């Protein structure tokens, strides 16, 4: 099963993973990744924006691509939008598979694509105001590994 969501409010990764495990009872392994607002560089808040007509459909296509590429029973991709506090979860990705390598690789693949090929823009508030976050070269290198 595929569970893809854009969330306006905070979420509990623990509860989401418990439900995901229940929905994929036949899996031998579930891998997951939680991305959080990094509490450093005097960051006071993070603002995530998206483009409604493209963002969720793009995430659904990505989840489908992960399902096709790896031997998965389920994939979950939740992404926050709106204003977030330091240490709040931004993104949760999980993959359920019969064997661990498929689940681990699927989470890695999905995260690399969410970082640099999904329609999100983020800016952070520091003591001197808001700053847009530029994509890092490393993110594109990470993405290129899957070509």
């Amino acid at each position: 099963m595929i569970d893809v969501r854009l969330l306006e409010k905070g979420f509990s990764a623990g509860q989401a993973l418990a439900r995901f495990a229940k929905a994929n009872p036949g899996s031998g392994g579930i891998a997951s990744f939680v991305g959080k607002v990094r509490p450093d560089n005097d960051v006071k808040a993070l603002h995530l924006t998206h483009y409604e007509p493209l963002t969720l459909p793009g995430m659904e296509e990505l989840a489908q691509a992960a399902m096709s590429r790896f031997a998965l029973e389920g994939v979950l991709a939740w992404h926050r939008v709106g204003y977030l506090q330091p240490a709040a979860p931004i993104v949760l990705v999980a993959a359920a598979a019969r064997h661990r390598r498929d689940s681990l690789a699927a989470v890695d693949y999905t995260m690399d694509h969410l970082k640099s090929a999904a329609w999100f823009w983020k800016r952070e508030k520091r003591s001197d105001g808001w700053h847009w976050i530029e994509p890092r070269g490393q993110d594109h290198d990470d993405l290129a590994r899957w070509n």
Partner: protein
Amino acid sequence: MAVKILFLGPLQDLAGAGERMVDGPLDWNGLIEAVGLDVAAKLQSEKVNVACSGRLLPDKSTLAAQDGDEIALLPPVSGG
């Protein structure tokens, strides 16, 4: 009716607003003229994508927006 241009992410700071209404129809040259010099310079780089009516344009220079369409200018992303 008119064409709505949406400035996503950092482009909204360059444009001075999140969106702008202009008279349609609007093609690529019309878009370049409508968005102001700063945004136009970014738009002409390969890194900025363009969507029209919710569909990403494989070649943005083929833009042909009609009255009522929404054009989204999509700079490099930074999610996750």
